[in-house]
C-alpha cells in the first residue's frame, strides 16, 4: 500500500494506482474528459491537472496518468492548478464551442468565452472511442488517422466498418457526442429499449428494471450484453464497488414439495402490430394504451409529460380506439378493462392539459363495474367525447405526422378527423409461454389459451389441486383479480388444512435487557454505502460530530452498515458499550429499518430503541454537487435522530387472543360458499339467514350460460351445510347487536323473541341485494310484462304461456343507469341473452328483440352475444332520453322505440315484454352498517377498504364482505368473492393470537378531560368516550381499542390538551426533532 496526501487528507491506495484514483477514494472530485474507469489512463484532455509537491519543488501534472507515490503531496485546488485547468478548458472550448459538456465544465471554472480563435470541431481527440473499441471490445473499428493538426478519429478508408459489432460503446463513451454510430457501422444500430417504459425509452444492458423493483438490484440482459454475446467488454465490473458482478452466475433450479398450486401468470398485451391498418409501428404517434400509461407516469419516459414520440410536442387533440384485438372473429371475447382504462387515461390526460381534446371511438361502453358508470358520466362532463364507431384504418398525414381517422358519425355520415396522437386500446391475451406451464401442470386451456375453469368453480382448473386466478382464466380488472387471488388461496387452504402452520419456524431472541431508569447511551453508526454517501459527504467528519452530541457514547463509520459482518459488530458494540439506543445514519428506514431493528433484538435491545437518519436517499443522492452542504445536512440529520433517540422508549407489541369462530350474515350463495370454505378449513361458523331457508337469490336461478346446473349446486351446498359439523345455521334470524372488535366479537342473534349471544373472531357480511320491482313499462298492470327472473322460472317450469310465441321484446336497464340508480346492474345483459337463446332454442321462429343501451357481455360472455345474434336475436339500441314505450291497443301488446342508427321509430307487436330490472341494495344495509361501523357508498352498497386493492376488506379489521352486498355481480363472481372473504377471514382465524402494532395511540388520562374532539376524526372507530368515578366525581376520558387503532395520529393532532399521543411519534419527540433541526451545527 502507498500513503499519500491530497488536499491535506491522507489516503492509502494499492500499488499502481494513479493520483486521480487516490483522489476518487477520498471523494475529491477532479474534473476530467478522457478518463474512463474501465480503460487504461491516457492523459489526452489535460483537464485533470493537479499540483504535486516533492523534494524538487512543485509541478503541474495530469492526475489520471501520474502514479501515486509514497509521501506524495497533492493539491487539487491551488490557484496554479485552476489557472492551468482554465487554459486547457479554454482551448477545448475554442475547438468544440458547441459541446454541452465542455461548456458546462468551462462555466464551472468561471469561463464564459474562450480567448482562442473558435473552430467548429466536435471531437477533442481524447481517443475514448478508439480505446474502448480496441481495449474492451477487441475490435478496433475506429482509430486515429493522420498526424499533427489533421489528426482525427476515423473509420478506415472513411467507409462503413465491416468489422464493427455495432455495440455502440464508442457513441456512449464520447464526452462531446461527436460519434454517430450510423457513420461507423454497416449495420443498422438498434437501441435496446426499456420493457418497463414499453419501448418508449432506451436502457443499457445492465440495468435496474424500475425504481420500485424488488429486489432492487441490477440485472444483466444476456441477449444484448456484449460480454455474453461476444465475450468482450466486462466494463461494468470496473464500476461496481461492491464487486457484485458475477458473469458466471447460472440459472438455479429448485424443487419444492407442495400440496396445491395456484397459477397466476397474468396476461400479455395484444400485439397491435398485427393490425397493419392501424399503423402502430409505422406511425410514431400511434401508441398502445400501456405506452400511454407510461407517458402519464411521473417516472415515465418524459417524467409525466404527455408528449408525442415524433416531435416531443404536447398533443392538442387525441383519440382512443377501442377493441384493438378484442371482440372480433379470431378473438371473440371482450378484454373487459379497456373501456374504463381509456376513460381513465382520457381523464388524466385532461388533468395534465385541460384544453386537450379527447375522443374515444368505441362499440359498447362497458362500464359494468362498481362506480364505473359514474366515472364514465364524469368523463363526459369533463368534455371527453365518445363516438360509437370502430374506425377501420388510421392514416398518417405527411409532414405534421398527425393521424387521420375516418369513421361513421352519429348521423350516419362518413367523417374524417385529424388527431395529433392516437392511443390503441389493446386487448388482453393469455401469455404465450403459459402453454408450456399448462402442459406441465396438466391443465386444460380454452380455445383462446386461457385456463379452462368451470362456471360454478371459478378458480378451479381441470386438475384437482391446481387453481388459477387473475386474467389467466379470462380477462378481468384489478378487483376481480385480487378477489380470485384470495379465492385461490382459500381453496388451497381448505385442501391443506391438516398441514397448516407446519412449515413455520420461529426465530429465537435473547431476553430483552431492562433499560428503564438508565440515561440514554447512544451508539451512532454512519454508513459510507460504498461511495454513495462517502463519495459526497465527509463521513468521518459526521462521525466526529456525532461524538459531540449529548448522550452519544459511541460512534463509528462503516463501509456498508447493512452487511452481515457489520450486524455482528453492532451486536457486539451494543454489549461492549452498554448501548441502550442505536442510530444508523444511512439509507431509508422504509427499506432497512426492519434489518437494524432485528439486529437490536438479537443484541437483547428493544427494537423500538432504534432510529435512522436518512443521509443517502434524502441527502447525498440529492446534493451530489454540494459536498459541503451535504456534509452539513448529514450532520443535521444525525443531530435530529439523536434528539429523537434520547426520548425513545421501549415498546411492547400487544397480543390478543383470537376467537377462532366466524359469523357469516346472509345465507345466499355468497354466505353459503364462505361458510363452507371456512368450515372446510376447520373453523366453526355461525350462519345467519333472514328467510326460512338458505339460498337467497340463487334459488331463482335455473340455468347459466356456462351450462352448469345452479339448482344442483344449491342442493349440494344446502346439503353439505346441513350435515357439516362445523356450521350452525340460524334461519329466520338477524344479528341485533355487535360488540367488540377483531379477534373478539360478541354478537346477538335474534330469532323472533329469542336471543342468543355468540362469540366470534371475524364477521363476513353477505347480506345480498334484491331485484328492483319495476313500476314502468306496464309491469304489474299487464301479465304479459314480466321480469327476466320470472321468464327464467317459466322456462325452467316449461310454462304453457311460452308455447308458440311469435314475438318477444326484452328491455334492458330497467331502473339501472338512470338518475335514481346511476350504476349498471352488470348481469342483466348476459341474463337477457341467456333467456333469448333459450327461447330461440325452444322455437327458432320466435322473434326475439332486445332493446339495449350498451351490450355489456364482458370477458368470455362475449361469445354468447355472438351466438344470440347468429340465432337471429335482434339487438336494437335505444338512448337514455328516448326510452321505449310499452302499450296495449285492442288487447295487442306492443313496444315502440327509436333506433338511433336509422334515426327512425321502430314498433313491434309482441306476446311478451321481458324487463331486466336493476339490482338494488338490501333494505337492511343501514342497520348492518351501523352494527359493524362499516360504510356504504352513494348507491348503498357496502364500501370496501380500497376499490381496487382490497375488494373484500373493510377499513375495520376483522369484517369482510362478499356477494351482492358489495355490488351487482354474477354467480361465478359471487362464489369467487365468497371464497376470497373466507381466505381473508382465515388470515385472522388461523392464529391463536394477533400481534398488535406497538406504535399506536395511548391516552394520557390525567390530561384528557373528555372533550371528545378526537372521537369523530378517528378513521377506525378506535376511540370511545367513557366515564368512571374518580375521587367521588365522574371523570370523563377516552378509551382506545388496541385492536382497532392503526397509529395514524389524527387524534393526537386534534387534541388540544396533550391527552392522547402516538407511541414513538409523541409530540415531545417530534418537537425535539424540530428543535434539533433548527440548531446550528
Amino acid at each position, binding site marked *: 500500500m502507498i500513503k499519500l496526501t491530497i488536499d491535506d487528507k491522507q489516503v492509502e491506495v494499492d500499488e499502481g494506482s494513479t493520483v486521480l484514483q487516490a483522489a476518487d477514494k477520498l471523494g475529491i472530485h477532479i474534473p476530467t474528459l478522457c478518463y474512463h474507469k474501465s480503460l487504461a489512463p491516457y492523459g489526452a484532455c489535460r483537464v485533470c491537472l493537479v499540483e504535486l509537491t516533492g523534494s524538487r519543488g512543485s509541478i503541474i501534472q495530469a492526475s489520471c496518468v501520474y502514479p501515486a507515490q509514497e509521501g506524495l503531496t497533492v493539491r487539487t485546488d491551488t490557484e496554479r492548478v485552476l489557472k492551468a485547468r482554465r487554459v486547457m478548458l479554454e482551448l477545448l472550448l475554442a475547438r468544440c464551442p458547441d459541446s454541452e459538456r465542455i461548456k458546462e465544465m468551462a462555466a464551472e471554472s468561471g469561463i464564459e468565452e474562450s480567448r482562442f480563435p473558435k473552430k467548429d470541431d466536435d471531437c477533442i481527440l481524447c481517443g475514448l472511442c478508439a480505446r474502448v473499441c480496441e481495449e474492451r471490445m477487441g475490435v478496433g473499428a475506429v482509430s486515429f488517422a493522420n498526424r499533427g493538426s489533421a489528426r482525427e478519429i476515423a473509420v478506415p478508408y472513411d467507409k462503413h466498418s465491416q468489422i464493427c459489432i455495432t455495440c455502440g460503446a464508442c457513441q456512449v463513451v464520447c464526452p462531446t457526442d461527436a460519434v454517430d454510430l450510423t457513420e461507423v457501422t454497416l449495420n443498422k444500430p438498434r437501441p435496446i429499449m426499456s420493457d418497463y417504459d414499453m419501448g418508449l425509452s432506451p436502457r443499457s444492458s445492465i440495468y435496474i428494471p424500475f*425504481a*420500485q423493483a424488488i429486489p432492487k438490484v441490477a440485472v444483466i440482459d444476456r441477449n444484448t450484453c456484449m460480454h455474453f454475446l461476444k465475450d468482450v467488454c466486462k466494463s461494468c465490473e470496473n464500476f461496481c464497488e461492491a464487486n457484485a458482478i458475477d458473469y458466471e452466475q447460472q440459472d438455479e433450479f429448485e424443487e419444492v414439495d407442495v400440496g396445491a398450486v395456484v397459477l397466476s401468470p397474468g396476461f400479455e398485451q395484444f400485439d397491435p402490430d398485427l393490425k397493419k391498418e392501424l399503423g402502430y409501428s409505422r406511425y410514431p404517434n400511434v401508441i398502445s394504451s400501456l405506452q400511454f400509461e407510461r407517458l402519464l*407516469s*411521473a*417516472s415515465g419516459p418524459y*417524467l*409525466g409529460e404527455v408528449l408525442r414520440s415524433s416531435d416531443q410536442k404536447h398533443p392538442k387533440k387525441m383519440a382512443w380506439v377501442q377493441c384493438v384485438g378484442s371482440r372480433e372473429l379470431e378473438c371473440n371475447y371482450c378484454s373487459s378493462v379497456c373501456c374504463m382504462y381509456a376513460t381513465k387515461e382520457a381523464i388524466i390526460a385532461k388533468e395534465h392539459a385541460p384544453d386537450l381534446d379527447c375522443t374515444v371511438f368505441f362499440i359498447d361502453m362497458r362500464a359494468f363495474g362498481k362506480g364505473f358508470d359514474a366515472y364514465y358520466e364524469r368523463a363526459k362532463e369533463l368534455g371527453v367525447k365518445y363516438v360509437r364507431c370502430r374506425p377501420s384504418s388510421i392514416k398518417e398525414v405527411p409532414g405534421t405526422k398527425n393521424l387521420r381517422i375516418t369513421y361513421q358519425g352519429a348521423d350516419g355520415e362518413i367523417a374524417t378527423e385529424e388527431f395529433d396522437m392516437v392511443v390503441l386500446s389493446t386487448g388482453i391475451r393469455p401469455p404465450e409461454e403459459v402453454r408450456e406451464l399448462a402442459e406441465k401442470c396438466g391443465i386444460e386451456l380454452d380455445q383462446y389459451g386461457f385456463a379452462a375453469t368451470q362456471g360454478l368453480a371459478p378458480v378451479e382448473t381441470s386438475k384437482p389441486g391446481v387453481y388459477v386466478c387473475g386474467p389467466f382464466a379470462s380477462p378481468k380488472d384489478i378487483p376481480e383479480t385480487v378477489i380470485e387471488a384470495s379465492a385461490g388461496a382459500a381453496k388451497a387452504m381448505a385442501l391443506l388444512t391438516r398441514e397448516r402452520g407446519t412449515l413455520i419456524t420461529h426465530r429465537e431472541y435473547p431476553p430483552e435487557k431492562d433499560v428503564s431508569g438508565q440515561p440514554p447511551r447512544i451508539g451512532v453508526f454512519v454508513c459510507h454505502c460504498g461511495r454513495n454517501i462517502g463519495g459526497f459527504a465527509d463521513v468521518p467528519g459526521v462521525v466526529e460530530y456525532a461524538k459531540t452530541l449529548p448522550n452519544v457514547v459511541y460512534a463509528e463509520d462503516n463501509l456498508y452498515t447493512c452487511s452481515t459482518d457489520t450486524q455482528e459488530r453492532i451486536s457486539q458494540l451494543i454489549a461492549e458499550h452498554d448501548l441502550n439506543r442505536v442510530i444508523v445514519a444511512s439509507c*431509508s*428506514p*422504509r*427499506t432497512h429499518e426492519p434489518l437494524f431493528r432485528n439486529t437490536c433484538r438479537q443484541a437483547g435491545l428493544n427494537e423500538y430503541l432504534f432510529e435512522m437518519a*436518512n443521509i*443517502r*436517499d*434524502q*441527502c447525498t*443522492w*440529492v*446534493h*451530489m*454537487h*454540494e459536498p459541503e*452542504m*451535504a456534509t*452539513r*445536512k448529514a450532520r*443535521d*440529520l444525525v443531530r*435530529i435522530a439523536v434528539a429523537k433517540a434520547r426520548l425513545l422508549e421501549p415498546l411492547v407489541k400487544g397480543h390478543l387472543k383470537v376467537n377462532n369462530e366466524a359469523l357469516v350474515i346472509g345465507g345466499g350463495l355468497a354466505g353459503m360458499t364462505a361458510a363452507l370454505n371456512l368450515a372446510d378449513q376447520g373453523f366453526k361458523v355461525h350462519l345467519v339467514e333472514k328467510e326460512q331457508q338458505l339460498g337467497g337469490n340463487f334459488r331463482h336461478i335455473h340455468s347459466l350460460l356456462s351450462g352448469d346446473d345452479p339448482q344442483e349446486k344449491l342442493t349440494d351446498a344446502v346439503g353439505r351445510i346441513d350435515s357439516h359439523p362445523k356450521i350452525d345455521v340460524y334461519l329466520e334470524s338477524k344479528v341485533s347487536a355487535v360488540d367488540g372488535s377483531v379477534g373478539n366479537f360478541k354478537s346477538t342473534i335474534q330469532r323472533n323473541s329469542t336471543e342468543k349471544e355468540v362469540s366470534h373472531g371475524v364477521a363476513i357480511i353477505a347480506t345480498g341485494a334484491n331485484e328492483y320491482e319495476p313500476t314502468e313499462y306496464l309491469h304489474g298492470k299487464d301479465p304479459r310484462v314480466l321480469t327476466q327472473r320470472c321468464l327464467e322460472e317459466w322456462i325452467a317450469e316449461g310454462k304453457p304461456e311460452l308455447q308458440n310465441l311469435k314475438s318477444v321484446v326484452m328491455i334492458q336497464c330497467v331502473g339501472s343507469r338512470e338518475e335514481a340508480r346511476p350504476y349498471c346492474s352488470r348481469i342483466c345483459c348476459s341474463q337477457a341473452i341467456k333467456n333469448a337463446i333459450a327461447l330461440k332454442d325452444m322455437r327458432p321462429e320466435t322473434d326475439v328483440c332486445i332493446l339495449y343501451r350498451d351490450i355489456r357481455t364482458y370477458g368470455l360472455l362475449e361469445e354468447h352475444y355472438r351466438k344470440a345474434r347468429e340465432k337471429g336475436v335482434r339487438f336494437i339500441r335505444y338512448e337514455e332520453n328516448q326510452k321505449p314505450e310499452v302499450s296495449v291497443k285492442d288487447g295487442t301488446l306492443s313496444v315502440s322505440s327509436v333506433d338511433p342508427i336509422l334515426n327512425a321509430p321502430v314498433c313491434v307487436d309482441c306476446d311478451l315484454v321481458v324487463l331486466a330490472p336493476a339490482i338494488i341494495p338490501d333494505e337492511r344495509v343501514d342497520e348492518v352498517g351501523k352494527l359493524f361501523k362499516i360504510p356504504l357508498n352513494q348507491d348503498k352498497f357496502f364500501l370496501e377498504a380500497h376499490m381496487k386493492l382490497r375488494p373484500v376488506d373493510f*377499513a375495520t379489521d376483522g369484517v369482510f364482505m362478499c356477494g351482492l352486498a358489495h355490488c351487482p355481480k354474477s354467480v361465478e363472481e359471487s362464489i369467487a368473492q365468497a371464497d376470497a372473504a373466507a381466505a381473508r377471514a382465515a388470515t385472522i382465524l388461523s392464529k391463536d393470537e394477533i400481534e398488535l402494532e406497538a*406504535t399506536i395511540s395511548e391516552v394520557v388520562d390525567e390530561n384528557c378531560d373528555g372533550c371528545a374532539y378526537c372521537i369523530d*376524526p378517528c*378513521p*377506525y372507530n378506535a376511540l370511545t368516550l367513557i366515564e368512571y368515578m374518580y375521587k367521588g366525581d365522574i371523570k370523563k376520558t377516552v378509551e382506545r381499542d388496541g385492536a382497532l387503532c*392503526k*397509529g*395514524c*395520529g*389524527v387524534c*393526537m*393532532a*386534534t*387534541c388540544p390538551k396533550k391527552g392522547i399521543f*402516538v407511541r414513538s*411519534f409523541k*409530540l415531545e419527540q*417530534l*418537537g425535539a*426533532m*424540530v*428543535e434539533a*433541526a*433548527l440548531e446550528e451545527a
Partner: protein
Amino acid sequence: MADEQFEPIIVGFCCNWCSYAGADLAGVSRQQYPPNLRIIRVMCSGMVHPNLVIDALTKGADGVLICGCHPGDCHYLEGNLKAENRKEAIELMLEDFGIEPERFRLEWVSASEGPRFAEVIREMTEAVRALGPSMYKA
C-alpha cells in the same frame, strides 16, 4: 457568491407512505434539490399537530412543509383530509404571529413522484429564500 446567499431552513413533515417515499425516490433517481430541507418522518400528514408547525416557525424555522398523500390515497383513509382541514387554522394562527403565509405549505406528493418532490422543494426553497430570514430567527 454562495456564502452571502441566505440559506433558509425548512422543516418538512413527510408522510411515511407517500412523500417520504417520494423523497427517497427523488434520491434514487438523483433528482437534485436545494439542501435546505430537514425531513421529519411522520406516519400520516394528519398526525402533525398545528402546534408543531407554529413552534417550528416561532423557534426559527424559515419555512414548514407538510407533505401527504393525494386525496383518496391516504393510507389511513382520510388523514390527509384532516391535515387539509387544519391548514386554515394554521394559516389563521400564522396571521396572529405575524408570520408570512408563504412560510407554510401543505403539498400532496405520492411515492412515485420523485421529480415532483424535488420540484416542490426547489420552489418552496426559492420562495422562502425570497422572503428572507424569519423574524423569529435568533
